């Protein structure tokens, strides 16, 4: 299939966070598979996102005065915030969008709130490193992340006094799905297998033999003196795991309305490939049905997609740690801070009266960069916090894009670029002579919230 502006844009939104007009225009004409190849090639390399946080020695922290402890805590929280915006920056300004897009998915899937910069860093590394590779490896790795061990109370999971939190969520949320195959007894038995998985004083994952229950367990119809790894492997042997993960990915990448027949086919492929994530999503992006009318512009942009996407579409760069965190928070999705272990519910849940109005006004705020004009439409408290948002616009590139699009097909073309779902009734009444005003109108349309 030869790419059009609309289908190229669709692929870029779903495999990444959208793109600028010039980029898309370069891809109009080639086969869609070549852009899929480009996306995978672009995302091939993994580069860690570092924190410069130096963790105090456990004893040093213990002995510190209360004021010093408070200082350490603040420094630690700041480093987590910094990691958040560094990651956001990667999504917006560098290449490898597909890797980041999938890492955000896994962050919502293996949802957890890291407590320390080190927890955040290694957790993020794991999500990003495995985001396109193998689900089994990702599951094993994330299960041993100190952030996860801590978040789901596995430190309290010891022989003789098991804590079932992790064992329950690993099946209910991370693999099989709620009430699928497993029983309460399976949870109890799995919890025993994860006993002793904990964190040492240096904050690293360790297995404490003395806290581990080596006894025989009966799990999903198998018997043996399983340890945690074996439990994960048994779960991966179950087809249901592939079905659950594929269904969730379908809703993230294709359509909120699941197509059970397609999900069945895809999950078959996923299962028999040994859980090859890259293979599965390549299959999706290469399928002709992925570009069907009903799938284009059918998803509500998540706040992260909105923030990153706007930066790409308008050639802007957003900076300032606090305001960027605030922006994520008022829109309802703060990285490293999911509402709970079930992750962000997504879809229409992103939208309420407050978030919708906020979204409608944001492009105006972004575009007003540099001007001291107060934006009266935004609540005062919000405005104050956003005031320190650092906005840099590459006006030349933006102008070039608009000019190119306008010459290609007037405002109609520009609207096609910004609005994936198209406008009902067309752009009929728009004033073609004030292009800036017209574009601001387009981005206020609810259509702009879709991708």
């Amino acid at each position, binding site marked *: 299939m030869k790419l059009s502006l609309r289908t190229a844009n669709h692929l870029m939104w779903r495999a990444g966070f959208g793109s600028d007009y010039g980029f898309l225009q370069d891809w109009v004409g080639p086969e869609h598979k070549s852009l899929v190849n480009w996306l995978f090639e672009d995302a091939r390399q993994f580069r860690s996102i570092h924190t410069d946080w130096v963790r105090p020695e456990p004893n040093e922290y213990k002995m510190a005065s*209360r004021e010093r402890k*408070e200082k350490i805590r603040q420094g630690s929280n700041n480093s987590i915030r910094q990691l958040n915006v560094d990651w956001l920056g990667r999504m917006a300004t560098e290449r490898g969008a597909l890797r980041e897009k999938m890492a955000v998915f896994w962050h919502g899937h293996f949802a957890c*709130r890291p407590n320390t910069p080190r927890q955040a860093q290694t957790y993020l590394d794991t999500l990003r490193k495995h985001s396109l590779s193998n689900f089994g490896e990702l599951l094993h790795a994330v299960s041993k992340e100190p952030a996860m061990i801590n978040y789901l109370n596995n430190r309290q999971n010891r022989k003789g006094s098991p804590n079932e939190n992790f064992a329950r969520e690993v099946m209910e949320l991370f693999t099989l799905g709620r009430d699928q195959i497993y029983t309460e007894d399976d949870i109890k038995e799995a919890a025993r297998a994860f006993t002793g998985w904990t964190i040492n004083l240096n904050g690293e994952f360790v297995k404490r033999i003395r806290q581990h229950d080596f006894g025989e367990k009966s799990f999903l119809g198998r018997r043996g003196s399983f340890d945690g790894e074996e439990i994960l492997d048994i779960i991966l042997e179950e087809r249901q795991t592939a079905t659950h993960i594929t269904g969730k990915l379908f809703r993230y990448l294709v359509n*909120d*309305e699941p197509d059970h027949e397609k999900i069945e086919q895809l999950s078959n492929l996923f299962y028999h490939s040994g859980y090859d994530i890259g293979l599965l999503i390549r299959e999706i992006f290469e399928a002709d049905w992925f570009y069907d009318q009903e799938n284009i*512009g*059918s*998803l*509500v942009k998540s706040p992260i997609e909105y923030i990153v996407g706007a930066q790409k579409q308008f050639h802007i760069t957003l900076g300032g740690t606090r305001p960027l965190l605030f922006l994520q*928070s*008022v829109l*309802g999705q703060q990285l490293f801070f999911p*509402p*709970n*272990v*079930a992750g962000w*519910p997504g*879809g*229409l*849940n992103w*939208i*309420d*009266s*407050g*978030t*919708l*109005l*906020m979204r*409608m*006004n944001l492009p105006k705020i972004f575009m007003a960069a540099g001007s001291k004009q107060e934006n*009266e*439409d*935004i*609540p*005062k*408290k*919000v405005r104050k916090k956003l005031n320190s948002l650092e906005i840099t616009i590459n006006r030349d590139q933006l102008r070039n894009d608009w000019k190119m699009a306008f010459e290609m097909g007037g405002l109609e073309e520009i609207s096609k670029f910004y609005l994936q*779902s198209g406008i*009902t009734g067309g752009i009929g009444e728009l004033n073609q002579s004030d292009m800036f005003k017209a574009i*601001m*109108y387009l981005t*206020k*349309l*609810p*259509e702009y*919230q*879709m991708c």
Partner: protein
Amino acid sequence: MENRRDFLKSIGLVTAGTVFVPSFLHANNLKKSTHKRLVVIQLSGGNDGLNTVVPYRNDDYYYFRPQIAISDSEVLRLDDELGLNPGMSSFRKLFDEGYVSIYNNVGYPNPNRSHFRAMDIWQSGMPESKEQTGWLGRYLDHACSGDDPAPAIELESKLSMSLKGHREKGLAVENPERFYQSIKDPQISQIADKGYSGNNSDLGYLYKVLNNVKHSASYIREHYKLGKTIGAYPLNQFGNDLKSIARMINGHIDTRVFYVSLTGFDTHAGQPNKQRNLLKLYSDGVSAFVKDLKNSGEFEDTLILTFSEFGRRVKENGSRGTDHGKANNVFVMGGSLKEAGLQGKAPDLNNLDDGDLDFNIDFRQIYATILNKWMNTDHTQVLNGKFNTLGFI
């Protein structure tokens, strides 16, 4: 959660091409509201209940808190066991007039000491689940037809979980005038009127939200402008918020739930002055609010619930503060309480749960009482369980 299709069906968006017409366009209906209303005040950060309602005759209390205990000469005595924080003199007046019920030892099994998780638990009313809706949101799901212009209002820029239901959602209105201004932008206003007639059901939902916001904004503002207040509110955000609520109520708005929060209660250090100032703010604000509602005759139809996500440790820490704890007190106020005053037992400092106060009233009993007896809704439909109701209304 309901599935997506049910949800869209429930708001009438599943058939392609539906053009919706808001059925509450009768904003000129300025009659007195027919519903009883609930005002929720959330003390964020974990208010130290033990220094709010003080067991001033209890030796253990002074033993555990050598530096921050409130002496019996300072407390505002309520009976011969308990007294209020000295910052709460205006609250005390309300208590004396029989407008306040105080419940101590309110909590739930396996309490959580994280601010976020604990707040989620209080807001969702479902400690054991990963529920993403709030108890008041689910109440709206049951009680509202979808046609009410402003069934619930939170005085915030962002809606908290409390007011999010599966189908219905409260409105985040940081300030009624600004809320109205934000939709007055001619482009946004035009888009809101335009509506949607395509077959993308999610997009249809967005247009519907926007259209509702527009009408709600004018509706709210109209009542806000009409209402009068004379109370002396504290000159800060919390005072302004309560004043705005009083104006809307006195302007006969038909809103069932108002939600407002006061933050800063996370007093790990230097607690005595901080907490006293906050409680004074709270008391003075509530007192002005009650005065305005009494004046207009609305107080009898109003119930005010005050809670915090957790209480604090019984033993003070090393920097004149307290760390996160468990059970806490809850206040219910209103013009038509059946049982006012101190309810149930005083905190028991002899039987602590790992250094924290244990609970003997489940917070969901308070919710259940409000739902059943005040808001006319079967609480089992909202709270996912049956709870014994209490006698305050």
